[in-house]
C-alpha cells in the first residue's frame, strides 16, 4: 500500500510519514503509509489525537514532515508546496471565511489568489453559489449565514480553483439533518465528477455512506485501511439475529432454555444470549440474540426450533455490524 512509485492512478501518496513536534514526547504520526486513488472518497477516522489532523496538515503543506514523505498528484509536499497548493483545496472544520468580504467576493478573491481570470471567476462563483443553494444571498456577509450555509460556502470556495484533491475536515459536524443530507449529495456529486476527496469524520454513518475506503488511525499509526464493507466483516459473529418469543405455558423458563440450546446448535452460530423480558406484564416473553456471520440464513431453522418447543415468534430482526463497533473494537472505549 505504500506506493513508492507515483502511479498515475493515485492522487495522494503518503510514504512512511513521521511527524514529531518540537515539544512532543512521541511521534504524532508514526510511520504512516497509504494511497488515495484518483476519484475516490477516502476517509481518515480515529479518536481525537490519533494523528489525523497532523497527516492532513502535512498533505496541505501546513506541517513539515520529520521523515518520510507525501505527494499530491506526484508533486512532493515538502519539495514543492506551491505546486501542491495549486492542486488542493481545504474545507476546515471551523469557518475560516473572510468576514470582511461579501459572500460572492469570498469566492472571486479566492479564485484571484489562484490566478483564475476575472471573467472566469465571476461566472464560476455565480454558478457554484447557485448549485449550492446560496445564489440569492450572495451579496451578504457571512455573519448572516447559518452553520449549514457556511459549510456550503466553504465547499464552493474550495471548488473555485478546480482542485484535484479536496480535503474535508468533519464536513457535516454540527449541521442539521437537512444540511447533512444536502452535503452528502454534493460530496457524492463531486466524486462523480472525478474529484478525489480525503475526509475526516467522527460520524460513522457518514463514513459508511460516503467513503470508498476508510483508514482507521490511532496513536499515530494506521490500524486498518479497507472498504467499509470489508471493515465490517472484520468483526466475526457481529451480525445478530434477534428473536422475540412468547409462550403461555408455566414452564416458560425451561422452554426458553431448551430453545437457546437448539439455537446454539444451529450451524454458523457463534453465541446465543437469552434474556427474559422483564418489562412485559405477563411472564413468558423472551429475547434470544443469535450471533453469527450469516445469520440471515438461520431465520427459518431458528423459527422452527422455537415452534417445536411450543413457543411462538413475536418479532424477528437482523442487526448488522456497524462501523462504530469496528471502530471501537480497534481503538478501545476509553475517553481521550
Amino acid at each position: 500500500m505504500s506506493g513508492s512509485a507515483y502511479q498515475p492512478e493515485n492522487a495522494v501518496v503518503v510514504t512512511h510519514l513521521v511527524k514529531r513536534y518540537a515539544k512532543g514526547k512521541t511521534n504524532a504520526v508514526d510511520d504512516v503509509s497509504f494511497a488515495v486513488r484518483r476519484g475516490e472518497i477516502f476517509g481518515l477516522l480515529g479518536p481525537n489525537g490519533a494523528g489525523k489532523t497532523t497527516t492532513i496538515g502535512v498533505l496541505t503543506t501546513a506541517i513539515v514532515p520529520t521523515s518520510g514523505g507525501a505527494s499530491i498528484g506526484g508533486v512532493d509536499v515538502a519539495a514543492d508546496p506551491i505546486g501542491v497548493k495549486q492542486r488542493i483545496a481545504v474545507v476546515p472544520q471551523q469557518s475560516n471565511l473572510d468576514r470582511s468580504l461579501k459572500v460572492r467576493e469570498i469566492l472571486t478573491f479566492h479564485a484571484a489568489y489562484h490566478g483564475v481570470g476575472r471573467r472566469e471567476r465571476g461566472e464560476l462563483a455565480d454558478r457554484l453559489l447557485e448549485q449550492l443553494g446560496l445564489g440569492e444571498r450572495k451579496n451578504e456577509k457571512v455573519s448572516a449565514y447559518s452553520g449549514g450555509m457556511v459549510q456550503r460556502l466553504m465547499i464552493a470556495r474550495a471548488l473555485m480553483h478546480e482542485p484535484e484533491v479536496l480535503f474535508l475536515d468533519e464536513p457535516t459536524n454540527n449541521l442539521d439533518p437537512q444540511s447533512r443530507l444536502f452535503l452528502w449529495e454534493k460530496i457524492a456529486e463531486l466524486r462523480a465528477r472525478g474529484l478525489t476527496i480525503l475526509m475526516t469524520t467522527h460520524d460513522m454513518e457518514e463514513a459508511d455512506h460516503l467513503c470508498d475506503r476508510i483508514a482507521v488511525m490511532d496513536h499515530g499509526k494506521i490500524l486498518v485501511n479497507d472498504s467499509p464493507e470489508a471493515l465490517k466483516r472484520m468483526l466475526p459473529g457481529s451480525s445478530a439475529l434477534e428473536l422475540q418469543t412468547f409462550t403461555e405455558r408455566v414452564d416458560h423458563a425451561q422452554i426458553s432454555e431448551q430453545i437457546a440450546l437448539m439455537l446454539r446448535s444451529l450451524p454458523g452460530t457463534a453465541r446465543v444470549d437469552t434474556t427474559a423480558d422483564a418489562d412485559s406484564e405477563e411472564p413468558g416473553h423472551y429475547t434470544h440474540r443469535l450471533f453469527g456471520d450469516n445469520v440471515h440464513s438461520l431465520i427459518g431453522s431458528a423459527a422452527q426450533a422455537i415452534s417445536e418447543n411450543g413457543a411462538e415468534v413475536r418479532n424477528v430482526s437482523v442487526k448488522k455490524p456497524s462501523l462504530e463497533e469496528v471502530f471501537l473494537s480497534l481503538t478501545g472505549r476509553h475517553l481521550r
Partner: protein
Amino acid sequence: MGSRTRLAFSALLATFHRDLVVTGREFIPFLMQALMQPLFFLFIFGKVLPGIGLAAPNFAALMLPGIVALTGMIAAMQGVTLPLVLDLGFAREIDDRLLAPMPVWFVALEKVLFGALRGAVASSVIFPLGWVILGTGFAVRTDRMFALLAMVVLTGLVGSTVGLLMGTIIKPDQISLMFTLIFTPLLFTGCTYYPWGALSRIRWFQVLTLLNPLTYAAEGLRYAMVPTVGGRDFPTLPLIWILVALPVSVVVVFLLGTRTFGKRVVT
C-alpha cells in the same frame, strides 16, 4: 518570468487588492481611528500650550514632524498587528491566503506593504489637519519634498514591519498587556514630542532613544519639514544615520517577523 513566479506575484497582487477593497469600504472609520489622537495632540501641544505660554511658539513646527511620524507608524502597526494576532490566534481567515500558490512569506510581505500604505496615507492626512488646526503656526519647508516622501514611506514600512513582528509574537490572551508593554515605551522614547538634539542634557535618555526606530523616522521628518531659521537648517540626527538606520531596521525587523510568521503558519 516563469509561470510559477507570475502566479505567485498575481496571488500577491490579489491579496493586496483584497486589502484595498476592505479598507476602502471602511475608509472613514480608518481615518477616524488614525487621526483622533493626532488631532488632539496638535490642538493641545501646538495651539493650547503655546497659546497659554507653556510652550515656545515654534514648538508646533518641531512637533508636527513627530506627529506625522507617530501617526504613520501607529496606523501601519495597527493595520498589521491586531488583525494578525486575531487571525493566527483563532479566526484563521489567513488560511485562504496561506493556501494560495505563493511562498508563505509573500503573505507576510503583503501585510507589510499594505500596512505601510495605510501608514503613508495616515501620515499624509496630518498635513491638511495640521494646516487647519495650527493656522499660522503651520510651517513646513517645501524644498525637500523628495526627502519628505521617502521618510513618509520609510516610516510606514518601519511601523508595518514592527507590526508584523509583534503580530506574530503576541498571543490573543496577552494582547492588552503586550500593547501596553510595547506600545507605550515605543511612543514615548521615539523623539516624537521633542527633537533628539535637545536631549543632549539627558545624555542616557538620548542614547536610549537611538534604539527606537521611531526616533529616526521622527528626525528624518524634521529634516524634511522644519523650516530654516535665519537661513540655517534645524539640527537633526545626521541624515546618514537616518538613511542607514531606517532601511536596516525595516530589513532586519522584516526578516525577524517573517521568521516568526513562518513558524506560526508552518510547523
